[in-house]
């Protein structure tokens, strides 16, 4: 997996940009929890083949959660979630936590599922509707020789039949794909006598260290900044 710390780092940056007035320690903690918790699917691995990167790493559950949230808080005349939250906290608190939930969903989709999508065997993007791992890789450039080129999605046209084949990085299914993680550091179907080496990565490449640094920088900069609107003219920034 892309290290959970990398997900958290990028999530911090996005959350700082999206939480607005709701930015505080508790809101950040809730967003981070939404982002990190799906990693628990690693522990389902011993019971369900290919559970990691499948159960907690798809676009179906976030989309379903967003649809439910939208239906409940926007379309219905009386929102069950809002009423419950209003009873527990206040009306303002209810609006705040609903906004935080939206941010959490967005950040989970981008900072967790999408970052794993571009790493190793990718994610089981449409599980449980469709069981297939997808890995996103490629580049986009404009060249004086070839014009606009993108290699993320390959479209091949068979010269004989004229049929189109679209390659969006699809791979195996949850039966055949195992994404190694500290709980199951190697493919369970592999038989070997080597001692088990569990590796807990912090950052396996420069860009992952960079994403961690970005999140920490945003956190520290928000701390050092003065109050908004220049309420205190003595403050530097």
């Amino acid at each position, binding site marked *: 997996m892309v290290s959970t710390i990398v997900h958290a780092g*990028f999530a911090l*940056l*996005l959350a*700082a*940009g*999206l939480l*607005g*007035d709701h930015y505080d320690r508790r809101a950040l903690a809730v967003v981070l929890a939404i982002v990190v918790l799906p990693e628990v699917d690693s522990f389902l691995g011993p019971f369900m083949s290919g559970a990691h990167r499948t159960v907690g790493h798809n676009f179906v559950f976030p989309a379903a959660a967003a649809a439910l949230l939208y239906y409940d808080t926007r379309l219905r005349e009386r929102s069950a979630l809002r009423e419950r939250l209003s009873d527990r906290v206040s009306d303002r608190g209810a*609006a705040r936590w609903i*906004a935080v939930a939206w941010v959490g969903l*967005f950040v989970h989709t*981008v*900072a967790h599922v*999408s*970052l794993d*999508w*571009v*790493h190793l065997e990718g994610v089981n993007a449409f599980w449980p509707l469709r069981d297939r791992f997808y890995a*996103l*890789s*490629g*580049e*986009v*450039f*404009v*060249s*004086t*020789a070839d014009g606009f080129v993108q290699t*993320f999605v390959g479209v091949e046209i068979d010269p004989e039949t004229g049929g189109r084949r679209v390659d969006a990085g699809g791979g195996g299914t949850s039966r055949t794909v195992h994404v190694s993680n500290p709980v199951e550091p190697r493919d369970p179907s592999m038989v070997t006598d080597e*001692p*088990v*080496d*569990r*590796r*807990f*990565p*912090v*950052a*396996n*490449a*420069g*860009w992952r*260290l*960079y*994403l961690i*640094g*970005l999140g920490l*920088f*945003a956190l520290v*900069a*928000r701390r050092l*900044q003065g109050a*908004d*609107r*220049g309420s205190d*003219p003595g403050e*530097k*920034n």
Partner: protein
Amino acid sequence: MAPTLVNAAVGALLAAALLGAAFDRRSVSIVIAAAALSDLDAVASLVIPGATNALLHNLWVPLLVGAVLYWDGSVRDASWLRERAGWYGVRVAWVALAAFVVAGIGPELFGREGANLLYPVHDAYYHVHGRLVFSTQDGIVQTFVTRDAAGPGILPLQSPGTTGSYAIPTWVNPDGRPGLSLDAERKLYLVRTGWQAVVVAAATATLAVRFEWHQATDAADPHSDDETTEVSR
């Protein structure tokens, strides 16, 4: 150099995170421009040998600008910037400086090309490559920072070379050396890897959402033109 689009995208994310009440179209444009600015040294490389990722990718430029901003804002009796542009100007200036360093130089330093951090005082490109892993068999494995790295660098980082030995090709300057090479093939990269595509998509979505809120609050509160409104929802 890393694609300028990626520098701009990280700059946009920093703008959304750090501008606070100063967030509006103008301030976001300034911060994104600051993030993309450092890539202009590729143009200078047409004249100055090896200027790419060196002339505007060193630490001296942001240190100098930061010192001037600090002196103007905190040491002088009356701040020139605050008198001219108010609290808004001071906030935008600091965030733009942060974007220049973190979004402009950062992706090069942590990417494949490297940045010439101490140029022109000491000429060597640096990049942060490696891994940091806790392994039950090998303990802590850390290869980002190395004291005995081969190469011309004096910082404890890997160095791919100097302005003389290491040329970085760009779409402006395909061979990385002075002189126009008009016949050469030019490649303008927009994104080079998957994670860069994710960052660009995230920045686009974040800006779209933030401007949506911004307009909503502006419409609700028409007297808030000068005092820029904080997003609320």
